[in-house]
């Protein structure tokens, strides 16, 4: 009785389909690979203190074996006339913006990788070449990278740079939070050299307290927002400023972690591989039934 079989089949198929749908629609939160350490470190950048001496740029290049002129040349402030971005030649740069509160005292903003708590690069990388470490640093592994540049698409701050000029072994270049230095107990190179103490290195949760403290003590000096406290789920690097961050070229970002939606979709499609397997079974069933139908028509 082929009709009976078919009805049974559709019942089964509907059941499989429904259960697959219900599983895939479960709200699955974006998973961070490892649980975030409560002792993870961070840096608080107080842009109202920064004098734009660019010593951090030099120290960074020295620490990462990048080509650089001597420290003296960095006193040339004409570099600040143009807005720059971190790239494959400089992992951090300082940009200067006019200060509406005091025209004589421009605002200088150091830019580098923010070391997100839920990094888009870590989630997106096809081979898992990025790692979020216990101390907060997000680093890149040369031995895994295949150079697809998806991290650059994913990064909400548009930080990773790629060595386009190299035909062999091009690297993804970005601030690594001086991972090798901090392992030895040293400060990140930029923090160590900063003469104005615009950069404070410490436990992230302490830094957030310090930041809010400063805002509270000098509400006229600061714009009431700690950038990085909640943006895209929080970042290790935190910023204080005297004006709206959007005017300082920071991207306007929500509080949801950047990889959240993507990971929910991925987990939905691949919930224990049930949806693909259910689809396979469904198609197999349809094929079998149709073949059977055809055969019985052949016999007519």
């Amino acid at each position: 009785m082929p009709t009976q079989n078919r009805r049974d089949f559709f019942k089964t198929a509907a059941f499989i389909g429904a259960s697959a749908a219900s599983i895939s629609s479960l709200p699955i939160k974006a998973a961070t690979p490892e649980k975030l350490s409560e002792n993870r470190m961070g840096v608080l950048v107080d842009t109202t203190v920064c004098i734009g001496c660019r010593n951090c740029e030099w120290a960074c290049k020295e620490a990462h074996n990048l080509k650089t002129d001597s420290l003296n040349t960095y006193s040339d402030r004409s570099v600040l006339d143009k807005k720059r971005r971190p790239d494959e030649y400089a992992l951090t740069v300082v940009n200067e913006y006019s200060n509406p509160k005091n025209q004589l005292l421009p605002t200088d903003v150091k830019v580098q990788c923010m070391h997100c708590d839920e990094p888009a690069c870590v989630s997106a990388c096809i081979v898992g070449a990025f790692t979020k470490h216990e101390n907060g640093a997000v680093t890149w592994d040369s031995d895994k990278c295949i150079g697809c540049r998806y991290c650059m698409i994913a990064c909400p701050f548009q930080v990773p740079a790629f060595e386009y000029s190299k035909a062999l072994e091009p690297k993804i270049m970005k601030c690594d939070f001086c991972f090798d230095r901090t392992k030895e107990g040293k400060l990140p190179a930029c923090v160590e050299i900063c003469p104005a103490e615009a950069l404070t290195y410490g436990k992230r949760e302490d830094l957030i307290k310090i930041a809010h403290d400063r805002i509270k003590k000098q509400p006229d000096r600061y714009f009431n927002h700690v950038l990085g406290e909640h943006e895209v789920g929080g970042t290790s690097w935190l910023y204080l400023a005297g004006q709206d961050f959007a005017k300082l070229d920071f991207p306007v970002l929500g509080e949801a972690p950047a990889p959240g939606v993507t990971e929910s979709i991925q987990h939905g499609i691949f919930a224990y591989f049930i949806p693909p397997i259910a689809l396979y079974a469904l198609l197999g069933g349809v094929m079998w039934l149709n073949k059977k139908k055809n055969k019985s028509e052949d016999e007519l």
Partner: protein
Amino acid sequence: MDFLMRPTPINKKFITPGVIILILLAINGLVFLATRFIFGLGATTNLCNQHPWGIWIAIDVATGVALAAGGFTSAALGHIIHRERYHVILRPALLTAMLGYTFVAIGVFVDLGRYYSIWHPLIMWNGTSPLFEVGICVMIYATVLYIEFLPIVTEKFIGKVKWKGILSKPIDSFLRFLDRGLGKTMFIFIIAGVVLSTLHQSSLGTLMVIAGPKMHPLWQTPILPLLFLFSAIAVGFPMIIFESLLASRSLGLKMEMDILSRLAKRVAPLLGIYLAVKLIDMVIRGTYIYLTEINVQSVMFVIEIVIGIIIPLRMLFSEQVLKSPLWLFVSASFVVAGVFINRINCFLVAYSAPYALDSYFPSVGEISVTVGFIAILVLIYRAFVMFFPIISLPDRRLTQKTKYSIMGGEK
């Protein structure tokens, strides 16, 4: 009297003026390709830190995968829903898909900064990455396509291995063994092919979701994977129509209008679903407000919808269009162009680099390589249909069995 259709190698001259032009384009592309490998991506492309992906990803990979969708949609129709009459289009569609995916893989290879590490995803897994899923699915699906193509190879060579010496006999029996084994297990691969296709066609859309606010709201939506899947399903048959009309014209064959217009009839509902989902999504997210601004994004979005969906949708409702090879070709071309524009929009136009000083436009080198790859693909297609039994021609030795005259006609 109708003759039964049978896949046959096409006996025609390979070289024509058109073929010579294609060969020149291919050589030009390969020259620029050489500069990419000698001097690096920076020397050949207009890519930069603000625009990490260019047309090699948007066209060679994303559009390539979408336009090779004819492979799985026809397999679903011909093998799984089991409509016998469509079997004549299965082999050409399979060939397109196989060559398409091969060139997708080559496109990725060329675009990778460290192309020699392309095998890394096989052992270095990252389950949260949609790119990882796309990579693995494409790899497995390409293999499945090669397996699906194998019976055509065995059919070509069985009983025709004419090497001297003792080798010819074992090879022939190996081919026969392969043919029998594949015949019994092929359904496994056919279903796997359809499942793998739905997975990576949709995940290709998931790719750009993580770009978040960097992607223009007209395209940035959590249901991007669904839209990619629906558009891929919708473009599958038009692509088959497009290429078989083109191939018939180029090879001087009779156009299979009966099958093609039946196929075209199925396109309108698929396009309609795609359009409906796209518009509903737009209304729910309220992104139509961006259409009031006149800029590259809003203009490209309107072009994509009007040329790629609305015009062909209207055309395919007309009986005259379905019956005329020219108009059928035009409407199929619109659908193909629409998906082409959509993929370029999603990967390039919608992606606004936050700190870009200038916008991205592909370099001469990038365009040359992309055009060169398409030229090589067409040349290989031509060579394959001349060598292997792929395109079905009426066979004078086989006459129609009576059952078709009784059962013929869908309704």
